[in-house]
């Protein structure tokens, strides 16, 4: 009987395991995860929930794995992969032989250079355990410093502020959300944080970080010193490629796969945050997406192709972030856009449509309270997928339903 092994029990790996069953695979499935918890959703970790310690939001109940005959090995690390013998060696000294292998190893939070990962007051956020530890520090009267004004940093800043802590965000670039988020939206987010009392410092270089017994001292290049009870490092994530690299698989800003998520080695696939792939919608440029939706979509695609299909990645990249009662969503990649058309939905909600030199809709970015922008961003995503060249006036007029442009 065929044996499919999935390394990485996050969103992508778990979804792929269930997708294999949904698609009718009757062989053995082993799903291997390093963390002790059953696969859970990561997006809630950085966002404000209740005042209670965060509960993991499981992707499926623990019973679902045996019900679906998925052998879930938790707290287990794969220490070696040998494509020649099609085997993986586990931390419990077991060796498994696979017919098809999926690497869904995800990404790890980047730490601050030179800081010990066991530091109690200088932390990253990637796992549920990280979130639980962090939660304990978010109280009125505490001062939380956040290094990095990206999605994770700002979501955590909002969460810490909602829980009553004082918050300072330190960003090296001239503005927050520099990567992939247009300035108008970054400004709206910055303004909202400032209204809530978050101290956002952009264009600041950290010269030194020092952990003391009761605080962390941050020395900025300009000479200023910031003292915090806890410092959270949100400066991006690095794909977990060590296993693949040691096995000789091609690496290119992640495990390099083709449109079908096949790695450079037969019968080994990679999906989710750990892999980079060519995106035909944008001229075949190689991208690596750290997003929840991408992890789900690639899980399904990988499962299909492990079963012999030849499906290609065609989804539009999509990201979202929640901060306070605002939601930000981005569909597509705006890098090559030359024109931006603004659609105002209400006083606070707006969408920017990003169009290429030939008038093609490349991306849409929106911000608003609650779900004000959700429907239009979803429709924009469909327009992007069809390589539409929508009329600028129609995009700008909120009275024109975007759904009507889809039919055009």
């Amino acid at each position, binding site marked *: 009987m065929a044996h499919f092994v999935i390394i990485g029990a996050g969103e992508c790996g778990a*979804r792929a395991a269930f997708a294999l069953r949904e698609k009718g695979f009757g062989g053995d499935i082993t799903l291997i995860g390093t963390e002790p918890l059953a696969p859970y959703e990561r997006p809630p970790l950085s966002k404000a929930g209740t005042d209670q310690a965060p509960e993991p939001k499981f992707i499926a109940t623990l019973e679902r794995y045996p019900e679906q005959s998925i052998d879930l090995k938790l707290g287990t690390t794969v220490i070696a992969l040998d494509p020649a013998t099609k085997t993986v060696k586990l931390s419990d000294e077991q060796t498994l032989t696979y017919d098809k292998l999926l690497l869904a190893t995800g990404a790890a939070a980047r730490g601050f250079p030179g800081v010990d990962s066991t530091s109690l007051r200088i932390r990253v956020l990637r796992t549920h355990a990280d979130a639980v530890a962090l939660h304990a520090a978010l109280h009125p009267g505490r001062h939380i410093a956040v290094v990095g004004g990206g999605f994770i940093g700002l979501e955590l800043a909002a969460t810490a502020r909602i829980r009553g802590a004082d918050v300072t965000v330190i960003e090296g670039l001239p503005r927050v959300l520099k990567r992939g988020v247009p300035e108008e939206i970054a400004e709206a987010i910055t303004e909202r944080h400032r209204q809530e009392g978050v101290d956002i410092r952009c264009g600041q270089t950290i010269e030194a970080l020092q952990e003391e017994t009761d605080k962390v001292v941050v020395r900025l290049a300009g000479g200023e010193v910031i003292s915090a009870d806890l410092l959270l490092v949100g400066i991006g994530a690095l794909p977990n490629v060590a296993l693949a690299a040691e096995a000789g698989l091609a690496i290119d800003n992640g495990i390099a796969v083709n449109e079908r998520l096949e790695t450079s080695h037969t019968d080994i696939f990679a999906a989710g945050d750990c892999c980079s792939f060519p995106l035909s919608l944008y001229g075949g440029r190689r991208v690596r997406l750290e997003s*929840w939706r991408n992890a*789900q979509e690639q899980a399904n695609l990988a499962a299909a192709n492990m079963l012999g299909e030849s499906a290609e990645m065609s989804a539009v990249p999509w990201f979202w972030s929640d901060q306070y009662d605002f939601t930000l969503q981005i569909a597509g990649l705006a890098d090559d856009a030359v024109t931006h058309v603004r659609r105002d939905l209400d006083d606070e909600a707006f969408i920017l449509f990003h169009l290429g030199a030939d008038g093609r809709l490349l991306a849409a970015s929106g911000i608003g309270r*609650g*779900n004000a922008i959700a*429907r239009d961003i979803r429709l924009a995503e469909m327009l992007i997928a069809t390589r539409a060249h929508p009329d600028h006036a129609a995009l700008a007029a909120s009275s024109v339903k975007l759904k009507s442009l889809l039919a055009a």
Partner: protein
Amino acid sequence: MSNWIEVCAADAIDEEDVIRFDHDGRTFAVYRSPEDDYFATDGLCTHEKIHLADGLVMDNIIECPKHNGRFDYRTGEAKGAPVCVNLQTYPVKVENGIVFIGL
């Protein structure tokens, strides 16, 4: 035996669209299909309790505006990740141009 509650005028819901309807402390989503048939489900997505009336209706599917949970609004059936649980559905009738939901 359903207790029929008035929702709105039939033409208050656009073709292939959805509205929110609240009644007696509960919230619902009421749909009009391209064929001018009307349907009703519980209002909140079973994934993270986001209201479905802010979502997109297309091809008999309601898609949650937040995380793209999808359901067939005619049957309540969940259509894949991230949703695990089907939606409760309710009978709907249209009389004299008024939509009623059966609770």
